[in-house]
């Protein structure tokens, strides 16, 4: 057995084993729990960086487990999975730090961190999945491991949100399962190869394959919150802030978007999809979602709900970029937005959590003058918000630039139009917040001031948003450097031969 093969299970186990130990630990052993969490996260990052380096230099990471004929579990490290895995593991470290600060003193922490670790395991599993069945396995497990996190507060409201989340997610999973089985009966078991299936199937099963494509997209679209399937996401805001950050930036929504990328690039392959002619449908749904999410975000007063609708809108940039699969620039824009959106959105959620946890602020109307009380938090928030709007030199600008270029190259003016309108709407719903925070006057006392110490808030709550905000600017500023996300996405696109 060679090390390449065992690296992938090791990556999964590096958070799975701490998770299991944390479950077994009694509630009051918080120091040991913290150590375990952080060690696991750091070990995972190191292992994933080893994998990234290996992939760059052409090593082949793959491990298979055959269950029954035709059902095979396959973990496979390719550049695309490395992108998602790296993003998840880095953000996970930060979220863990944040969560430790956030949940200090609240009950049931061992459960929370146990499921938290299982959840990262499953997300990395989605990244490393090498065929549809493995993807399905981790996709369903993701629902199961995030559910306890969503209902962590244990209130009736959170239960309702959890129930809706389950219904949406499992219905999506069921559709996905059906589509996977149907696809396998037509084209047989296939791995994610980067080329898709043989075009000869299109001659014989064109309609069926097109229908299956739609079903697959519906299946992953539930988690990616494509428009008619987005209902669970705003409700899931009742969860604690680290969980929201995780759902939006890393795990659930991204898993859906990542699924769309996998289906388009690996399962079907660009050429087949162009032949089938179903991509305009995906582009249309993505565009509608972008506009709808932005418009709904405008109407929200609750900060987290506004951010949630913003997520719905922003994630569809990824789908939009992928749906223009014949334009490499658009694909680059979509893929790189997977990373960039994660960085920006996690910053915003960290900041929202800080406001709620420190001053009890949940509504935008309560935010007047908050920047004077919490300058660092609001600075990070501003960076994230400006990134969302797409102001250079943040990473948001890079994504939109490439998407626009791709649209132009294809001669699709409507893409540019949508980007412009959506940026305008983004500005409409983010700038008022910034103006209120920086230039508004504090009206009365804060709703529920919970913390008064040396810094503006607890140290562990402050560090993560500042780090992510720094990355948002840095990754945008040095986008052309050798090791930026953009460079890696270019490497991916070269590998797919677009």
């Amino acid at each position, binding site marked *: 057995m060679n090390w390449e093969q065992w690296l992938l299970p090791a990556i999964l186990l590096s958070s799975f084993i701490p998770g299991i130990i944390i*479950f077994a630990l009694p509630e009051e052993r918080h120091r040991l729990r913290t150590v375990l969490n952080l060690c696991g996260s750091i070990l995972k990052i190191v292992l994933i960086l080893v994998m990234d380096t290996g992939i760059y230099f052409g090593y082949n990471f793959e491990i298979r*487990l*055959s*269950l*029954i*004929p*035709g*059902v095979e*579990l396959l973990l496979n490290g390719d550049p695309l999975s490395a992108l998602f895995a790296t993003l998840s593991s880095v953000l996970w470290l930060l979220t863990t730090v944040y969560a430790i600060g956030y949940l200090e003193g609240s*009950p*049931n922490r061992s*459960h929370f961190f146990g499921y938290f670790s299982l959840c990262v395991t499953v997300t990395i599993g989605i990244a490393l999945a090498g065929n549809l*069945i493995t993807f*399905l*396995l981790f996709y*369903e*497990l993701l629902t*199961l491991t995030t*559910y*306890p996190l969503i*209902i962590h*507060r*244990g*209130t*009736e409201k959170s*239960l309702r949100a*959890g*129930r809706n989340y*389950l*219904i949406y997610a*499992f*219905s999506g*999973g*069921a*559709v996905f*399962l*059906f589509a996977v*089985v*149907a696809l*396998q*009966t037509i084209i047989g078991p296939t791995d994610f190869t980067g080329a898709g299936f043989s075009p000869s199937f299109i001659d014989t099963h064109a309609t069926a394959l097109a229908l299956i494509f739609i079903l697959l997209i519906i299946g992953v679209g539930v988690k990616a919150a494509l428009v008619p399937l987005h209902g669970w996401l705003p409700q899931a805001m009742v969860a604690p802030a680290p969980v929201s950050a995780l759902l939006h930036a890393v795990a659930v929504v991204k898993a859906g978007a990542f699924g769309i990328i996998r289906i388009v690039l690996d399962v079907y392959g660009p050429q087949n999809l162009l032949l089938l002619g179903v991509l305009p449908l995906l582009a249309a749904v993505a565009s509608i979602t972008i506009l709808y999410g932005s418009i709904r975000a405008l109407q929200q007063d609750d900060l987290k709900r506004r951010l949630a609708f913003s997520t719905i809108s922003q994630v569809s940039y990824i789908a939009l970029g992928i749906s223009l699969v014949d334009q490499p620039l658009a694909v680059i824009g979509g893929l790189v937005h997977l990373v960039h959106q994660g960085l920006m959105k996690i910053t915003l959620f960290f900041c929202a959590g800080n406001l709620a946890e420190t001053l009890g602020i949940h509504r935008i109307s309560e935010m007047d003058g908050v920047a004077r009380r919490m300058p660092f938090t609001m600075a990070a928030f501003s960076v994230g918000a400006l990134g969302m709007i797409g102001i250079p030199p943040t990473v948001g600008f890079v994504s939109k630039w490439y998407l626009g270029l791709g649209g132009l190259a294809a001669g699709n003016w409507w893409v540019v139009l949508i980007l412009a309108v959506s940026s305008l709407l983004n500005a409409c719903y983010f700038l008022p917040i910034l103006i209120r925070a920086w230039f508004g006057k504090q009206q009365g006392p804060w709703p529920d001031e919970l913390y008064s110490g040396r810094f503006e808030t607890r140290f562990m709550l402050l560090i993560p948003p500042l780090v992510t905000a720094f990355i948002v600017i840095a990754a945008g500023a040095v986008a052309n450097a050798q090791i930026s996300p953009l460079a890696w996405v270019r490497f991916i696109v070269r590998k797919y031969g677009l």
Partner: protein
Amino acid sequence: MNPFQLASPTWMISPIILPLIAGLLCFLLNRRTFAIALAAAVANLLAVCFLTYQLLLFGPMRCHMGGWQPPLGITLRSDGPAVLMLLMTAVTGLAITVYARGYFSHRILNLRQATQHQEQQRYFWPLWMLLLAGLNGLFLSNDIFNLYVTLEIIAIAAASLAALSGKPASQLASFRYLLVSLLGSLTYLLGVVFLYRSCGILDLDILQHHVANGPGIRAALALMSIGLLLKTALVPLHFWLPPTHANALAPVSVILSGLVVKGSFYLLFRLWFEIFTQLITPSALNFMGTLGAVAILWGAVQAMRQHRLKLMVAYSTVSQLGYLFIAFPLSRIDESIQVWSIVIFMALGHACAKSALFMVAGAVFLHLGHDRIKDLNGVRASLPIPVFAYGIAGVSLMGLPPSAGFIGKWLLLTSSLTSSQWWWALVIITGSLLAMIYVFRVMSRFFVIPEDYSVTTSAPLSPLLEWPALIMALISLFLGLAASWPMKILATGNTALTQVFPGGLP
């Protein structure tokens, strides 16, 4: 021939004789009954493991009782499906034995009426051991009349066990259960008479080659099937199952739901797909499939509407049994391995998951003193291990990967789509979603943190009550990952397989 050598088929009797002797001793002796039962359960597991090993080495075997060859003598047969069912029974049986010990000790120590509980425990062991012997006998037997006797052993032991709790509701349910079993057995016996009248043979191997398509044999098959369906509780005939399973003591519910219904189903399946293969028409298969589909949906809807945890779990059994019958129309008769693998995975997965669920329900009942679903708030904090077990077992019931239930559902979906009978696939998927609803309806209750919450001071549950549930749940979950093992056992000596997978097994 030396009966004790490695290749001797005589080893086959050990899973029958060991629990039988244990049952007699448990009744005869007053003390150390648990030790005897535990020893028998462990020995049974070892014996079954040995049989599996033997099967893998030497292929299927026949053991002629008393040395008399068929058609006159009775034959036992060990082959892939039989050994897998034995394994299922042995593993679940060991878990039940341990759990029952914890259950009775807890009740004797913590509740009033200790004498009554001691009495229940005193009769539980012999009944359970003899039931185990009967089940093992059923899975191994190759004689159509001997199968009737094993069915009766199971029926009487199961009905007595079901009445053990002494509550009026359970006794009424048990009385009905006994009558239904008896009716089923009698119908089966009438079928046997018809069969014997037209063929003059009782041995299944010979029957397989002598079956000619005549009205007598068809009537025999119909009668036997109706009798077995009644015992398996397929939907229009399921009325007796929920009250019986829900009102019994928790270890008994585990036995009834996890094992007993599988016995009659196994026999039914064997008759349809090995013995009377030529008589089976597509319309008959579709009829069974339709009943199965109705069972899935009806059982799941009823499970969603229940107010008590154990009743919910019992209705889920009705629903899950439907999947076994959906396999009927999806079977292409020439590829028996495919059908068997579907049924075996569904049955194994369900046995493990359902025993875990009933064990959890029992633990919750002991902890709270009731099992009303709406009052289950906050159980997670006081019973973390059972709640975890409940979640994992629920995953298996929903058929999510990587559980054994998933493998079963995957096979069902694949064969329904390859044979272009997509409507079954829709039923299967809907069934899983409904299962999700009823599983999580309870699960979410466990997670509620009540407002006036404080850790209850009631005595902690014994680990014997918690760990068997978790272990069974984990087995049901990871059986899917080890799916190639059951496949290998199933395929041993099955010639059809070499044609299906020419490249050899994974």
